[in-house]
């Protein structure tokens, strides 16, 4: 049995067309994967930065709150106590006053300074919680800004992905175009070969000397 060359060409064209379609689909998949991989890498970087910032924020609450408040209060108390100490003003005494007068005055003055020092310490420690919270708020506020900015950059980067995916979807267009041509030619050839009328061409008629008759249909004769 001899295979019809048109049919063979049509089948070949369809095989090539299918192969090209397949290749185009693979190219699209590969391009889409490349887009998604690149974006995943970028998003992972943003995610890591965000996680680091969040860990830093969490760190403010992982310290012992009692110790943090105490330290902040002691810093305040030291500042207040240092500035609470007042320069002494001399108090006149009579020349005949016994030494015990001066001693009594010094004793009560020292007691007064001691009480005022305790007051300064208490005042400083009282503000310890607020001072520690303020430091936390400043740190957390800055971290929140960093996280917001990170999210902004991540969203901006992700916003380009739909466009890139659309472009990736078009990556196989050229191959698909050729595939369509081959498939179309194959379909035409197949239709011609299977449903055409007249004698089918042979390999010899394709590559041999020119036929005296028309390729298909009735022989060429002069009309009367």
């Amino acid at each position, binding site marked *: 049995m001899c295979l019809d060359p048109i049919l063979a060409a049509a089948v070949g064209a369809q095989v090539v067309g299918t192969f090209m379609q397949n290749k185009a689909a693979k190219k699209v998949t590969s391009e889409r994967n490349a887009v998604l991989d690149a974006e995943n890498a970028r998003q992972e970087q943003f995610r890591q930065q965000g996680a680091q910032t969040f860990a830093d924020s969490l760190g403010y609450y992982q310290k012992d709150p009692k110790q943090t408040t105490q330290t902040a209060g002691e810093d*305040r108390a030291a500042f207040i106590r240092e500035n*609470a100490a007042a320069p002494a003003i001399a108090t*006149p*005494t009579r020349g005949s006053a016994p030494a015990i007068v001066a001693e009594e005055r010094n004793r009560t003055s020292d007691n007064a300074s001691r009480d005022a020092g305790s007051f300064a310490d208490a005042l400083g420690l009282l503000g310890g919680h607020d001072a520690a919270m303020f430091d936390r708020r*400043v740190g957390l*506020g800055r971290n929140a800004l960093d996280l917001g*900015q990170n999210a*902004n950059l991540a969203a901006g980067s992700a916003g380009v992905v739909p466009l890139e995916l659309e*472009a990736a979807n078009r990556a196989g267009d050229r191959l698909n175009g050729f595939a369509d041509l081959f498939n179309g030619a194959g379909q035409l050839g197949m239709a011609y070969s299977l449903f055409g009328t007249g004698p089918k061409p042979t390999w010899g008629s394709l590559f041999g000397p020119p036929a005296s008759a028309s390729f298909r249909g009735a022989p060429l004769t002069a009309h009367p």
Partner: protein
Amino acid sequence: MCLPTLKDNSTELARQREAQRQQAIQQGMSSIDTAFQPFNDDYYSGIQQNALDFYLPQLQDQYRDAHKQSVLSLARSGNLSGSSGADTLARLKKEQEMARARIADRALQYSTTARGDVENARAQLVSQLNASADPSAAASAAVARAGVLSAPPTFDPLGDAFGKFTANLANAAGAERAGYRGLETGLFKLPTGGSARVVN
């Protein structure tokens, strides 16, 4: 025949624009950080010191006056060298040191408020930068905002720190004059023989 091919590079342009936007935001952040660099620990220590320099001399003047009044009052009553006088002067000293402690606390509050203001201003600028992604606008806004923040803060005036103390001293003398115990000096008591009585 070759047909001219139109290459669609809109995706590359979009990615490029996004990269430029991110770079602009980072540049803007550096501008903001540079503008806010002077607001460091030294700056806030300076605010504390300004508050102390403003209030403490006023308090010292008031203390000097109150001390003088107390010494005169105690001297008049003969109690200056006694334990009552020592107690009175010690109480005055305690009042003074407590007032100084409150001033130091207020100085800390001023610096905390200033730091909060600076942080708020910085946060607003960063938000604006994120929204606009315009580093030049962020930089000029940061410089302007930093200039406003550097303006000296206004401090509330110091009230009369020892008014209560000296008023008590005067009241005690008045009470004694009126026949009550008062300072128990006996100096301000009126003669008991007559019917006349001074009403203050």
